[in-house]
């Protein structure tokens, strides 16, 4: 079954009036595959991410998803109830700002447990145990389970957000600048954690980032966007080590060397 794409994006375009958000983007994503979408601010990468993750309806094009029962469905032909169910069970979405993806006034345990309760889990003890287990997996100590995320550091909040998403065993994760705004040592820890989880859980992921080092570390494949278009795509190390397009060469040559 891994020879079938999990997600097929077909000529997706989004226009904001006359302006282009993204145009004619197509690609397949296979189970266990991590795709990085890179480009500078305003290149359309977040628009594309939102179009694929049903957060923003594309102007044209289709996004097909292979459901757990192996049927292929067009996301925008599904009912809203089905789409939202998919989003909170089979998908995860990690926001750049953890406050957008967490309930800041609700304890860490409840943040992780929410998806379980949403799919009908009604045993407090089990929910709490699962939440603690997931906090452990993202390196948050058990004794923080009843603390609210507002009492957490940026890195912890981001890890909590990841745990909250993974608790239902999703097959696909969307990440929008997951390490943005974190200092380097915290970034390194988070990237390592994401790498491990993606590998161990066999997750497919689409990671939007402007940081090429993040793309190199996390992704198998990448697409480079400029002015709403995909200008180059391929194996991550190929695009980074042998960039063809002028813009990609500029991006790669602009990386700061330490």
């Amino acid at each position: 079954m891994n020879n079938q794409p999990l997600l097929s994006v077909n000529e997706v375009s989004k226009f904001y009036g006359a302006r282009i958000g993204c145009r004619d983007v197509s690609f397949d994503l296979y189970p266990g595959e991590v795709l990085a979408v890179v480009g500078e601010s305003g290149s359309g990468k977040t628009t594309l991410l939102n179009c694929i993750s049903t957060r923003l309806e594309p102007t044209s094009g289709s996004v097909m998803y292979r459901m757990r029962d192996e049927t292929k469905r067009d996301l925008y032909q599904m009912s809203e109830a089905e789409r939202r169910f998919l989003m909170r069970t089979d998908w995860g979405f990690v926001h750049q700002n953890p406050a957008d993806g967490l309930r800041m006034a609700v304890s860490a345990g409840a943040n992780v447990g929410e998806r379980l309760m949403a799919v009908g889990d009604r045993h407090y003890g089990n929910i709490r145990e699962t939440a603690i287990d997931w906090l452990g997996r993202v390196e948050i100590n058990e004794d923080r389970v009843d603390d609210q995320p507002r009492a957490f550091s940026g890195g912890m909040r981001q890890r909590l957000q990841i745990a909250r998403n993974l608790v239902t065993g999703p097959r696909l994760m969307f990440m929008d600048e997951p390490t943005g705004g974190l200092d380097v040592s915290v970034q390194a820890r988070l990237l390592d954690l994401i790498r491990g989880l993606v590998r161990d859980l066999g997750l497919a992921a689409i990671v939007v980032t402007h940081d090429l080092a993040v793309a190199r570390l996390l992704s198998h494949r990448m697409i480079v966007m400029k002015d709403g278009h995909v200008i180059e795509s391929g194996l991550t190390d190929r695009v980074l080590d042998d960039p063809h397009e002028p813009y990609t060469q500029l991006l790669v040559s602009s990386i700061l060397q330490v």
Partner: protein
Amino acid sequence: MNIQADYNFAYLDEQTKRMIRRAILKAIAIPGYQVPFSSREMPMPYGWGTGGVQVTASIIGPDDVLKVIDQGADDTTNAVSIRAFFAKVARVKTTTHTSEATIIQTRHRIPEEQLRDGQILVYQVPIPEPLRFLEPRETETRKMHALEEYGLMHVKLYEDIATHGHIATTYAYPVKVEGRYVMDPSPTPKFDNPKMHMSEALQLFGAGREKRIYAIPPYTNVVSLDFDDHPFEVQKFDKPCAICAAEGVYLDEVILDDQGSRMFVCSDTDNCESRQAAGHRGELSGMEAAQ
């Protein structure tokens, strides 16, 4: 002769009452669903029962007998005023006896005496949206109701247990109506939740400021949300009513002096008085007379 009653029966004009009755019918047809309506200004401030009063005004007829309670009591300002209001604008008979009433407007209690087929209980509701404190966006809560996404409701109960070791919500305890809509029963104590289930009486809820009406038709399934390992429980009281010795009823705590003496008495004054009339006596029942 009373001029107000001659102007229009039960204060509201007929078009307004029609509009509200339509909302009520829709609410009955979709148990637990919050129906928007164009709430009118009433001759009382928001928070004093404008929603309940509009519902009552729209359903009341000349032959109805009205009872109004506030926290179970017939003799508090709010209850007395609303009763006087309808006596004036609809010239209906009023009562304090639950069994005699055809319409009971209530703020935060359900009478202890079991309601009968044909009676209507009208609740005054301050905040109709049970999801409001967890999700501030109305667009989002409406969507959640529409798609039956109620995981968030359990998040609140989870937080209760995580913080207090048990579900500490004691009033406005969320219920699921007829297996579909999650509903806020208004700030009644959770003690009264079981009375909503399979009630013979029609239950109508009016929120004036929030412009929502919802309903539980007679004989409707009403289940209080809970966890398998933390099941729903009603409050229990250690002592019976200090005046009428009633057990298994909801009691109010009354502070007696500056030394911290207190007593627990029936919240439902009509029920307490009926029991006293029938000869029941509690441990402090002679106190008022003695003073």
